[in-house]
């Protein structure tokens, strides 16, 4: 018989966070993805980030499209509501969810097919709308769930499992997000939790649109030699440009970077991002520069990772729309209905 059980490990004495919860309270049911799929590591990083931030696990809205990646919201944060919607349309559903309740932490998970092909228009426009959310793409360069076709992020020349080369230029989501004006842009690798977790934390706390493109290998269809999204390839070609550490408001800052190459970014909630720049010239507040940097390195075959751009003072959609502080979904008839007297005035205008 084939037994495929991924048992839940029991930790008798799990550490608790500030709100008294353990990592377990942020987990979800056992994943049904392939053993070794990068996406599961991304889910694990989200669990860790949320637990470390001590956010209430039911105060999230998890939205996704369709694909293996889009299934993952069912595998983390089981105390919060999730919505596995339709292919490529996570951005619009997340927009609605965020408009309805600005108090929830909104996490959108998508795939490269979901975001860069069918969902490209929605992706570009949610960036413009500045929705306050964490938008993660589990980027494996392939359509996992439909069994391995090239996606639009697949690099030109990268080969399929059968050895056929991809003939099309890739779409680089990080460049796109930078260029369209996202206020928080990062790239990471599912295999590098140390880099990924602080980025997720920072994006969650960031007020505005936080985008993380996570290279997340597909072991079933795009992890062979010849693929530029395999574990091996990314380990060899990823070029971290900034090391980010996240410190909550009250937390003591415990890193000590060489002067000149480091910077502290203060977030509106008082938390701090400590940045160590591995390339001195890199400026994390200049998006034209960041875009240029990413594109130039890309042309040299390097995959730039880390925090690429952040505007800690960015405004979000609710500020632009000037909506009330209370979540719209909490307002009832007394808040919403102008009543008959007002209607009579309206009628008068029609006479």
């Amino acid at each position: 018989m084939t037994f495929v059980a991924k048992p839940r490990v029991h930790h008798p004495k799990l550490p608790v966070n500030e709100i008294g919860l353990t990592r377990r309270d942020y987990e979800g049911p056992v994943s049904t993805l392939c053993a070794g799929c990068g996406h599961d590591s991304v889910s694990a990083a989200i669990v860790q980030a949320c637990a470390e931030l001590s956010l209430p696990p039911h105060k999230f809205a998890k939205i996704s499209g369709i694909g293996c990646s889009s299934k993952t919201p069912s595998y983390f944060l089981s105390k919060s509501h999730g919505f596995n919607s339709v292919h490529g349309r996570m951005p619009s559903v997340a927009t609605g969810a965020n408009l309805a309740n600005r108090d929830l932490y909104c996490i959108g998970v998508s795939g490269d097919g979901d975001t860069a092909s069918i969902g490209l228009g929605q992706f570009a426009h949610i960036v413009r709308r500045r929705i306050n959310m964490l938008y993660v793409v589990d980027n494996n360069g392939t359509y996992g769930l439909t069994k391995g076709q090239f996606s639009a992020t697949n690099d030109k020349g990268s080969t399929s499992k059968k050895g056929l080369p991809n003939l099309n230029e890739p779409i680089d989501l990080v460049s796109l997000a930078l260029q369209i004006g996202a206020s928080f842009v990062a790239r990471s690798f599912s295999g590098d939790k140390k880099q990924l977790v602080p980025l997720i934390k920072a994006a969650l706390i960031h007020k505005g649109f936080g985008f993380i493109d996570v290279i997340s290998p597909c072991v079933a269809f795009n992890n062979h030699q010849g693929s530029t999204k395999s574990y091996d390839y990314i380990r060899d070609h990823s070029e971290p440009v900034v090391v980010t550490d996240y410190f909550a408001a009250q937390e003591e800052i415990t890193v000590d970077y060489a002067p000149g190459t480091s910077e502290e970014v203060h977030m509106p909630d008082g938390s701090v991002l400590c940045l160590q720049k591995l390339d001195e010239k890199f400026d994390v507040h200049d998006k034209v520069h960041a875009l240029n940097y990413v594109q130039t390195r890309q042309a040299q075959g390097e995959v730039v990772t880390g925090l690429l751009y952040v505007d800690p003072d960015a405004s979000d959609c609710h500020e632009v729309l000037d909506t009330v502080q209370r979540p719209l979904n909490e307002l009832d008839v007394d808040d919403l209905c102008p009543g008959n007297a007002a209607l009579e005035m309206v009628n008068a205008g029609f006479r």
Partner: protein
Amino acid sequence: MSINDFVIRFANVNGSGSASANTMFAKALFRMGLPVATRNIFPSNIQGLPTWFDVRVSARGYLGRRESVDIMVAMNAATYEEDVACLSPGGYLIYDSTKPLARHLRRSDITEIGMPLADLLLSEFEDIKQRGLFKNITYLGALSALLDIEFDVITGMVATQYKGKDALIAPNIAALEIGRGYAQRYLSCPLPIKVRRVEAAGDRIMVDGNTAAGLGALYGGATVCAWYPITPSTSVAEAFELYANQLRVEENSGRRKFAVVQAEDELSAIGIVIGAAWNGARSFTATSGPGISLMSEFLGLAYFAEIPAVIFDVQRAGPSTGMPTRTQQCDLISAAYASHGDTKHVLLFPSTPKECFEFGAQCFDLADRLQTPVILMTDLDLGMNDSLSDPLTWEDGRAYDRGKVLSAEDLEAVEKFGRYLDVDGDGIGYRTYPGTHPDKGAFFTRGTSRDEYAAYTESPEAYEKNMRRLLRKWETASKLVPEAVITSSGQRAGILYYGTSATPMPEALDLLEEEDVHLDTLRICGFPFGKEVYKFIEDHDFVFVVEQNRDAQMKTLLVNEGELDPARLVSILYYGGLSISADTIQAQISEYFTQQKLPRLTEVKS
């Protein structure tokens, strides 16, 4: 001699400011207490093409389109010939006589009333653009004399229209006076067709359906509106935003208790609506046919995932882009069964601006109660033209029906929460909003098959059970949508209609009465159909179904959902893109009686 009973048509060029002048004309008559109906026949174009504006005044209160024209104000050289041709014999032609009329355009059976408009304005206004704009006002002035319109009502209109732009009031009134003065001096005023103050309009208002629908969404408690511009629905979202900015702002902060997003397309608009509705906000979009097509995948998701999305479909003439500035009732099938797989959606059919408001508000209660999309099916004719309407009213103290939503306290009391359990036998489960409770009530929403506890499954039994529950919910819906409006005097035959096909109906029925054709009537207001609809059909030997599409789409729905014999439903169809007229209805029904050799006397059913 005819008082308060005529159709006047203004033939203009679009983008020339004529619509606002013509609207002032209609509104002035309305303010004199006359029932008026306007119809703006405009091209899919911004400037330079022909446009017509019909105003119907009817002492008997008929508001439908009439085929004949009594007075033609022919201001467009490009359509002059056809405009003259469509005037009824005995009618009046008002034209610009600055240049003489070509001989072949003249008719001996009408009265030609020339006014040297261009000349008149040339001497008065220097600016060429002003001349164009004031030309419309000048013929309005002339009409006030010709039709005996109370002049202070018209000048009052000008004052209302240009409130805030006071500098414009004086020259407009001057232009009015030029026209009026010319008419009084050189033309025989008033004409045998004229108006006289009455009280027929009562406390009614003149408003377009889209504005009323936007107000309906506002009163109905919509907080999220996501939309993409498309004629003829754009003004729904615009009205919602306009009035929300006036009436829905937080007192101290000045912040908005609503969010309006102009989305990048219809796919995004409906996605936003669904996301917001899933997260417990009342939300809606307004669109037209092409938008419904684009939304259909998402509508299937909302049906299956059970999300209360509200859509206002302001129908226009299809298929495809079709005639985007013409009216039809042609999206019934695509809306009712939108999306692949076995799907069905709740539809409401308003007939008047007041119903656009009321049904518009009710959509949100229904959607929340039924946890499913609800589509308001209106159309260009109702949506974009000012119609006479009863005033809008709201019963203060009326609560919103948010449907079956569990609060944190409710959840505490529940042993095991099952999102899709049919606890009450009405096919509707209990839902929770995200973030309600730290430990209970969270579930995963999906467009894939799941069991009663929202767990993913591909089990045939679980799937079928769920699909059957959705049919139970459908049954529940048929009891909640607005009931059909029936008048019955025990006739053998009936007539059934909906939406704007109701507008010409009083007139059509009167015309038929004159031919000794007597019909019981039923106006459909909602889908799925209530029992009363089928009973009405059963109770009559045959029933006419009036609609404005080619393929008899309402008949399709009636037959399909009710397992009716289609032979009992006789279609009366018009799909030319103007609104259906009483004449068309009468002619087709009359023809049917003749062809079938049916007796025309009232026959009370035994």
